[in-house]
């Protein structure tokens, strides 16, 4: 079986909603359990809203690779053109961004609670980060069980 892929351009908030719901369908199609597929959708949604919030423009790429043991894997790649994450470890702490704790008074204006990357790290089986020419890629992996 070949690797199957799908890509979604992310420019606005509604693109994030569309990508998340399509990702859920994508995962269900390859036999992922409903709960897990919804968790995958949450991860897509978090990564896509990060593109909207912090990047200039970007893309979510889904891929299903049936060869990864034991039963295949679905990867979510969030590519964006924009500034790099200054401190990934820090950004993954809930209530922190990539430089430090977020002032609670600014939470509303920030349109978020600073828990997005934390959620991605908790929900995905693996999370990888790499810098790219002019931007960055976050890869979240979900194993099919």
């Amino acid at each position: 079986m070949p690797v199957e892929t799908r890509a979604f351009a992310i420019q606005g908030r509604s693109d994030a909603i569309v990508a998340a719901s399509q990702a859920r369908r994508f995962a269900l199609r390859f036999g992922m359990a409903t709960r897990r597929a919804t968790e995958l959708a949450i991860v897509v949604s978090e990564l896509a809203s990060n593109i909207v919030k912090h990047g200039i423009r970007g893309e979510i790429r889904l891929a299903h690779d049936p060869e990864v043991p034991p039963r295949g894997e679905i990867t979510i790649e969030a590519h964006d053109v924009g500034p790099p994450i200054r401190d990934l470890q820090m950004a993954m702490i809930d209530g922190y961004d990539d430089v430090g704790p977020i002032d609670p008074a600014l939470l509303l204006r920030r349109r978020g609670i600073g828990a997005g990357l934390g959620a991605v790290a908790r929900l995905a089986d693996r999370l990888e980060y790499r810098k790219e020419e002019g931007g960055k890629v976050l890869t979240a992996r979900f194993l099919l069980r």
Partner: protein
Amino acid sequence: MAQSEDPHVIVTSDRLQSVIEALSYASVDEFDSCLDLLQRSGEIKDEFSELETAFSIFVRELGEAKSELNRTLAQQESINRELEAKLETIEVQQAAIRELSTPIIEVWAGVLCLPVVGIVDSQRSAEMTETLLETIVAKQARMAIVDITGIDVMDTKTADHFIKMARAVRLLGAECIVSGINPGIAQTLTHIGVDLTGIRTLRSLRDALQLYLRETEQLVVHQHSQLARKLTAEA
């Protein structure tokens, strides 16, 4: 065709005139009138008439090419219009998606209902909190029912934020009921050890509404009996 030694061809000025006229017709896209003129003047057969024939063939082809081009342009234009209409639809739908992600319904005077369906991520949770708290103040609501029947998974931190929203509702002097908690969410909430004191949770939206009605009814009955007692005391 008679070929003479003389390199000159003699042409009367009216023939020249009609070719010039034909050319001016062609220049304004009047190809039919142009061809008419060229055919009418084609009675004499000489070298000039060959030029006229070549000219008319050229004009006919030009006319055909031109009308073909116009047809394509018209098609292109209608395709463009269609595309523009579609883009407009997409924009409208995107706005609808954004709005639909946090609808707040005033189901009863002073009772707000926030039905949550689909995928809840941290940003959406933050948006819901903001919208709900603003609406409670704006509508002077006494109760907010957050129905999460449509949600089966939430990240722990997001769920935590969600419960904090319920607590913030109380700070604004309204009561918050969370209805429709399903087993998955219940597990998440107990797993992270969220303190649920002060937050009423009910199985369904229907139960939540019934509770509200019962309480208002009791309040009304209570007020009535107080009033009646006051009246008898006065009498």
